[in-house]
């Protein structure tokens, strides 16, 4: 039907470093050798830890966890582009970014082995929340932390992550809308890894892009190659500037691929072809990043080997520490129901202690 056009929108895609490590020099950010090497180092560490965790899990030495392999070029460049006082609100596939933000490797391991202690960060007033398992929630938290930062007169912004599947949750949309209405200093990053467990991106939503979902909240949105750390760096850096200037939130879709199983409990053979996976491997971020460093003259195989040895050792040490008995108390949960005492909790706490004593005694008898 003919009628007058009253609003127009467009979504652009940003790629700077392609899978062949060809760089678009017009768009290439001016980053120091130190910065780039440091970024690559974090990527290697995350990859190494991820692979080690998979082995540990397969050996029954670690609980279920969601591998991050292939997504190192998103949360790591983003985290490196942040200020210390910025908030980092992840979903559950931002391993590298969490490490950059100061999560000890041992904490990651403890968390995925079923201990709350893995959530306690070494700094006080950490500006990073634990993994947000219930999908979508963190999008709203981010609008709140960002509002609070501005209210308190800080120049802090919030960077918040979600997966492609997560963008189907109502909380995602509500959170974007609150952030936009409040012009809150937030950068939202969707790690579009093409899969939500067994559900492919195109079954999740029929939109041409995930990025365009930002249009529903009236916020600037764009798509970047999520396997290209330079594109992610540029997009996040510019979005953070906008946020700090008071220009409000940005929504970035980072296109990548979940190279491994959803979690160690998942079997991708049920729903996708190995051909698809193999093809995706040709675009993964490590190879092109390493090649970029080499092309820049910052890197060579000797340095690579040294780095691999270094991160292996770092991970090994973490695993050792992780596996040394920690002796954390069984009754810890009773101490953290509330910040105040209540007789009925105390009473159950006592009961709990009696019961585990008795259970232990009984087990002793029986064996």
């Amino acid at each position, binding site marked *: 039907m003919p009628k007058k056009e009253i609003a127009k929108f467009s979504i652009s895609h940003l790629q700077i470093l392609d899978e062949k490590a060809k760089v678009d020099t017009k768009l290439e950010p001016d980053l120091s050798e130190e910065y780039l090497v440091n970024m690559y180092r974090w990527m290697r560490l995350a990859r190494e830890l991820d692979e080690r965790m998979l082995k540990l899990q397969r050996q029954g030495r670690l609980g279920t966890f969601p591998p991050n392999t292939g997504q190192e070029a998103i949360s790591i460049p983003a985290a490196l582009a942040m200020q210390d006082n910025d908030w980092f609100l992840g979903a559950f596939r931002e391993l590298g970014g969490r490490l950059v933000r100061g999560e000890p490797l041992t904490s990651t391991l403890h968390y995925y082995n079923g201990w*709350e202690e893995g959530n*306690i960060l070494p700094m006080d007033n950490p500006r990073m929340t634990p993994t947000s398992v219930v999908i979508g929630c963190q999008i*709203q938290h981010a609008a709140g932390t960002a509002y609070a930062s501005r209210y308190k007169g800080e120049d802090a912004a919030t960077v918040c992550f979600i997966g492609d599947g997560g963008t189907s949750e109502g*909380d995602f949309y509500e959170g974007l809308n609150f952030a936009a209405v409040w012009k809150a200093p937030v950068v939202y990053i969707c790690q579009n890894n093409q899969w939500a467990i067994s559900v492919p991106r195109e079954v999740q939503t029929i939109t041409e892009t995930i990025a365009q979902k930002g249009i529903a909240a009236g916020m600037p949105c764009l798509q970047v190659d999520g396997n290209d750390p330079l594109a992610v760096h540029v997009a996040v850096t510019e979005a953070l500037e906008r946020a700090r200037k008071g220009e409000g939130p940005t929504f970035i879709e980072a296109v990548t691929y979940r190279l491994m199983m959803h979690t160690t409990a998942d079997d991708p053979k049920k729903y996708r072809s190995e051909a698809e996976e193999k093809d995706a491997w040709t675009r993964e971020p490590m190879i092109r990043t390493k090649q970029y460093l080499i092309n820049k003259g910052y890197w060579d195989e000797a340095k690579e080997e040294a780095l691999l040895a270094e991160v292996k050792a770092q991970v090994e040490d973490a695993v050792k520490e992780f596996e040394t008995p920690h002796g954390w108390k069984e009754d810890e949960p009773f101490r953290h129901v*509330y910040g105040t005492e209540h007789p009925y909790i105390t009473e159950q706490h006592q009961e709990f202690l009696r019961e585990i004593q008795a259970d232990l005694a009984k087990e002793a008898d029986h064996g």
Partner: protein
Amino acid sequence: MAKLNMVQAINMALKQEMAKDNRVIVLGEDVAQDGGVFRLTDGLLDDFGKERVIDTPLAESGIIGTSIGMAMAGLRPVCEMQFSGFSYLMMGQFEAHATRMRSRTHGQITLPLVVRMPYGGGVRALEHHSESREATYAHLPGSKVITPSSPRNARALLIAAIRDPDPVVFMEPKHSYRAFREEVPEEEEVMPIGVAQVVQEGTDLTLVSWGAMMRPALKAAAEVEKKRGTSIEIIDMLTISPLDGDTVCRSVQKTGRCVIVQEAPRSYGVSSEITARINDKSLMYLEAPVKRLTGYDVVTPYFGREKNYIPSASRVVRGIEETLDF
């Protein structure tokens, strides 16, 4: 001391706490310009400005979700669900984060926030505006649930809730909003969370209630006392999570008889929990079954019928007499 109704008393608590502590932020649907559909937040926008008194978009999950984020970052949001009937839309966020953050971080991140919501029937409102389901939130470990019954305790408990280090669901019996006035001192008054109040001592029977049902309970008690000279101990639970069962048990150990008045549907309601607590610690003192006068396990009827579905004073009188005569 001014004589205030519950709306004014709650408004007073909000104003006083906001004046004292600029970390306190009020947000919700229609809370700013309109002052809330029941006028609970009237005048706050003028006094504290739009950075602290926020008309949010229409999204309950978004309201609690952003409040959680604000609390993480050191603010003390007091958010409003326009009616408890719409609060189910926030349960995902509330359960997943508000109630758990302290526990999962061993207190490194805490969420001091208050979710205010009017609940209960008796105001001839449209469907979804008259439910009483306080037990729903009380079953979530890590949350505190308060149900004030009068202007004065509403004011004192709301101040406690705002200062509490944990998420508090503050359920306001809307039937009592303008039902009566009470002296409320200008100067600060704070009541403890998690402690029931013996509002009248007695020896023959323990009458327990909370929220809007305190009114028919008190009326019925007076009537029975007058009629039979019975000495009734009356307990206002005030907090339903964490529940103060001990105060009830102490009383029942003295009286041997107990009547509980609850507006909510019977099954899985607060009266079931109180009865279970009595069983746990005072069963052998009971001379009669605990009498549970409650709403029924039916979908809350529209207001044309609601009157007969909310416990009346005369129903409470009968319950008390049956229990005395058991």
